[in-house]
């Protein structure tokens, strides 16, 4: 299977920023 495609890297981008977003949400919950 060829992973070197636009869709693969667009999904990777969303995954990376999604995880970072979840870290922010987690820290906000930790603060409360």
């Amino acid at each position: 299977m060829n992973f070197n495609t636009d869709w693969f890297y667009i999904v990777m981008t969303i995954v990376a920023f999604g995880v970072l977003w979840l870290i922010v949400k987690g820290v906000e919950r930790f603060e409360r």
Partner: protein
Amino acid sequence: MSSAAAGWLQFGLLVAALAACYVPLGNYMAHIFTTDKDWKIERFLYRLMGIDRRADHKWSTYVKSILAFSLVSVLFLYLLQRIQDHLMLSEGMTNVPPDTAWNTADSFVTNTNWQNYAGESTLGYVVQMSGLAVQQFMSAAVGLVVAIAMIRGFIRAKTDRLGNFYVDTTRAVIRLLIPLSIVGGLVLIASGAIQNFHPYETYTTLSGAHQTIPGGPVGSMEAIKDMGNNGGGWFNTNSAHPFEDPTPFTTVFEIFLLLLIPFATPRAFGKMVKDNKQGYALVAVMVIIWMLAVGGISFFEAHYGLGGATAAHLAHGATEGVETRFGTPACSLFAASTTVTSTGAVNCFHDSLTPFGGGIALFDIALGEIAPGGIGAGMYGILVLAIVTVFVAGLMVGRTPEYLGKKIRPVEMKYAALYFLTLPVVILTAAGLSIGTHQGQAAIFNPGPHGLTEVVYAFASMANNNGSAFAGLGSAAMWYQTVGGFVMLFGRFAPEIFALGLAGALARQQPVPASAGTISTKSPLFVGMVIAVVLVLVGLTYFPALALGPIAEGLH
């Protein structure tokens, strides 16, 4: 003049120039982020973007703005590279492959500028200018405003507000980075850096071979490449290329540019907290570590010939990979300065440094870019380290530690610990996976300790947003492109999340007055303690990798 004498002269001039700029530039930076007055162009941009410039955001909103802005930036830069052959001034370049485009987009948005491509043979003028150079301004501004928001955490009380990301970023770009880049660019162009939109020209050499001479608006990009601690060169050979770095003067000027803002930021910090001596203490930490790095690399590069290496002895230094126009001293000064900042530009090749010289470059990067570090990133990094230091000192005397009137409680230390654990986890996990998997091993061309150094250096460079490389690793393989993209994104933004969370926790506190038991954070003792904490933390974290890599290679 001997090469060594020229090296000392360059170093002296550099120190004098940086010292002369410390107060005026630092004061100006503090003014930029504390004044209430907007420039006309800023008001126009706020209206255009629909920004309420009076809005003051809590830390989580600030960091979400950074993430949203960076997400859009990555996708836009990726798209620009993928449609390159439809753009004007593409100079015949085809679309960049998806893995390289993604790695490059992550790289420039995170201020890393790790390059798995040769600029002059991969990217046309439009992508270099409207894609990469734009991000060299924006990513530098993002780093700087995180530091400013963190400083506000110290000077504000009983609030959860740290400022407005969009206002701060606009001011950083318009009032600081663009004016300095214009001046820096003009100096470089006047000194011989090329600046044109000529199509590439092909000539026949005396031996009958054909040689293509690239062009481009190089001088203007060169200024922000260095001053924004970006490091991504127009050409594959970066600042070893005569079109980017034409003379010994420009090589020193480029070193000056890459150190200018990071060394002036502690002055802005001192000005904003209304105690300039606090800034002097932190800049002293930075200067001492920087000088140790310069001295260490210079020593090992100059004395490699002693003890048996005949070629290096005859050449008065380890000259493989060194640009002969600049010599070993300028190479060492550049290598130390580019690795203690998060710049990553090079005027000689780090893979050719002696094992111990290269080991110091790797150690510089592993420090977490705090001496003086990347633009903004160095400031918030050293502030977290200062907090760790007062915590350690507080444990020794049995008091709740304070820094600038803010108590360092368990919640602040949790943020500081998360900040410092992030990078080693990211770097060592990625390096371990690369060494332990077939995909990673397939691109390691040098066996033994040097191969290990190349892999660890690559991920340390990417995670710390440095961008310089040991050349012997096949990092253009899809494994390194993809894993590297993640490493750059998490290495950049996860520490920023924890730094801003820490700033938010500090801002919510009511300051406490200093008492007889408060540790002075502007004394030489504190400077020494911060340096010790830095060296112990980094030494303990990376010693196994350093021992198996550069130290083993050097001793062998």
